[in-house]
């Protein structure tokens, strides 16, 4: 996917780097950090992710929908292999996180 890096640089917004480990313990801190950034255009840097838990995926889906609802940009940039394959197991893709319909 050669366009991916190109895409990341062309998107503007606050860059938020996801931590390496996104397991059960990371869920609450992740929610709090994201909540603090509400309203800002956000670029989620997923390049460092090594472990991805289901609950953090839920949070990202919710965040994407919330940002969309509030008309701010929400982008996932440079997903690491672990991030992508972690999503794959759950039947998702980085883009699907952003596009999925949630309970409104």
């Amino acid at each position, binding site marked *: *996917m*050669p*366009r*991916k890096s190109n*895409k990341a640089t*062309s998107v503007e917004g606050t860059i938020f780097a996801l931590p390496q480990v996104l*397991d*059960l313990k990371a*869920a*609450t801190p*992740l*929610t709090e950090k*994201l*909540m603090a950034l*509400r309203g800002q*255009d956000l670029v989620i840097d997923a390049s460092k992710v090594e472990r*991805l*838990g*289901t*609950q953090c*995926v*839920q*949070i990202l*889906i*919710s*965040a994407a*929908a*919330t940002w969309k*609802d509030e*008309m*701010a*940009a929400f982008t996932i940039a440079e997903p690491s292999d672990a991030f992508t394959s*972690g999503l*794959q*197991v*759950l*039947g*998702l*893709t980085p*883009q*699907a996180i952003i*596009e*999925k*319909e*949630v*309970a*409104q």
Partner: protein
Amino acid sequence: MDAMAEIRQTFFEECAEQLADLEAGLLAIENGEADSDTVNAVFRAVHSIKGGAGAFCLDDLVHFAHVFETTLDEMRSGRLDSSEKVIKIMLRSADALADLVTVARDGGTADAARNASLIDELKGLVALAKGEEPPAPTAAGGGTSEASDGPVYDDGMGDLDFTPVAVDLSELMGDGGDNTFRIVFKPMPRMYAKANEATRVLRDLYALGEAKVICNTAEVPLMQNLDPEGAYLTFTIELSTAEPEEKVREVFEFVEFDCELSIEAIESEEDDDFGADDPDIADILNRIKATSDDEEESAADEPAVAAEEDEPEPAPKAAAPAPKAAAPEPVKPEPAKPAAASAPAKGEAGGDAKGATAGAGAAQTIRVDLERVDRLIDLVGELVIHQVMLSQRAYQAGLARASDVAVGFDELEQLTREIQDSVMAIRAQPVKSVFQRLPRLVREVADISGKQVKLVTEGEWTEVDKTVIERLADPLTHMIRNAIDHGLEKPEDRIAAGKPEEGTVRVAAMHRSGRIVIEISDDGGGINRRRVKEIAANKGLIPADANLSDEEIDNLIFLPGFSTADKISSLSGRGVGMDVVKRSIQALGGRVSIASKPGKGSTFTMSLPLTLAVLDGMIVSVGEQTIVVPLTAIIETLQPKASEVKSFGGDARLVQVRDTFLPLVDVARELGYAYEPASATGGVAILVEAENGARSALLVDAIQGQRQVVIKSLEANYGRVPGIAAATILGDGRVALILDVDAVVATSRVEGNFFNGSMKHAAE
């Protein structure tokens, strides 16, 4: 595959709603009435269409929608100004999108060249928003037929999978096998709390064979309602494996009591498997399946919603009329948030038409098959008839007017009338469904004719029976086309006349004395009466030296074969315009009139009945028969004196009404009830207005009364009878015919009566 067809139909129904929202939203933005919710709604509309289209592999539609959506996203995020130029492109794109939806539904081909060039324009806007150079038009911009085979135009979709896809898990998987299981796995929060990861369970599962997984995210709430350690995802896995079911169950051994789990073996692939290949179809399917649960759920939620806020309409968000809940089991109570989120949009909705644009369709609705409603209306019609019959018979049997039973009959009558009104209201729809097609029509006609036109619509929430609405579209289209093509002047002429360059066409709907009135007015040059008369004379429609009033000249344009256009254009000028309009309006029991001021413009006024199911009629006796004359046609009634009736010609008669003579039409003779002319002085003359506003007097024997009658089609139940429009059932149970006033008057004038070989004419 009936279920599949049903889903497809649901998709297209939703598409139609989304497209309407899209256009309404864009127009609101154009008129500066937009808020952030409008832009959001517009974006969501395109997004939903794209999502659904993806599920049905409608590639053209998906690609176009994607580019459109990308552009809208720029607008949504404020990087792209909603300037006039931008909105124009957006509106044209909305039209193209609507065309693509139509093509997807009905077949045919879309205008590939136009779509390709629109895609270029849209991409230009995105580039503009990003501060880049607009990309050079792609090769496909020249327009080829290749558009259908995939992304020949670079729509930027190469690297993204926008819809959740059945992910290729081949690396993780074992070999497939004979057994296929459908596993629905919904972790509970306590499963995660015990440090069991869904991912681990799923990986173990995939190791057993070939798996497809669909992740249902529909329960994920927005951030403010999110429990970071909650459980919102449901996974549907289709596993084909060589292992037996026990092995599959083993995977869930440690989480068995901390999740909801169903494992079922699937016998045949074709059976009910169609959704599994595509998560969106599965999603739609789930929604359909969940509808019943969802309704119960929302019914239970409703009081809570209403109680928690003052919002008068506790409704789901406007853009998504379809039930959203996907999981068949309503596990956690859905918070009352939806209405709260959309509350600002609906705050000003109320009865205000402009505000309502944003909050339109917000009320809770159900889709009901029209046939069921029609059946209900039929039955209520019967009820009304029987109620009248019953009370009449009771009185005939000697029931005292003052008795308790009589009071009961009165109450019953009121009740049935109320039921009838309420049932009629079910079929009533706002004319908006017709009006919302007009902006596009105006844009297209304006483009072709090279004029600048602004469309103003008023009263689009005016309600009228659905059958009337359906038959309103064609005449309205014709009249608007005419207003632009003939009514409005060319821009340079307008400037010369001191008018703004942009012409205005106004379409207004209103209720007036139990009818719906639709006015189409333009601020053009008005009807050129001298020219109209000249043309009519040239075509032999009127004698060259006819002396006509202004009004009569205006009405000439309704004559068959009349056309003012010098040459035939694609818009109008084929001479099948206004006479067809007039006929179709009359067929609806309506009338059309013109008011025109030279230099100021013209106004066409259509007046239509609110419903085609009941009719206010005057009950009259003709010979031995009882006939209903539609009240809308009647101007007045009078009893002719011998001195006022003049004979001329064979046995034609005229009646003098004040200072004019009107033809006296003997209804009994026209309908073949009598062979001898009835005595004019012994009966009643009913003055009616027929085609061209021409008046005549219908001679009947006596007037019995006036009442609302339920219309029963003769064509459907018996066959067409010349001179008769329909039938009804009277209180005494007899069938009475409803007179077709226009036909009777027209026939009497031309050929004597229907039974002198004039069947052909009357049947027209």
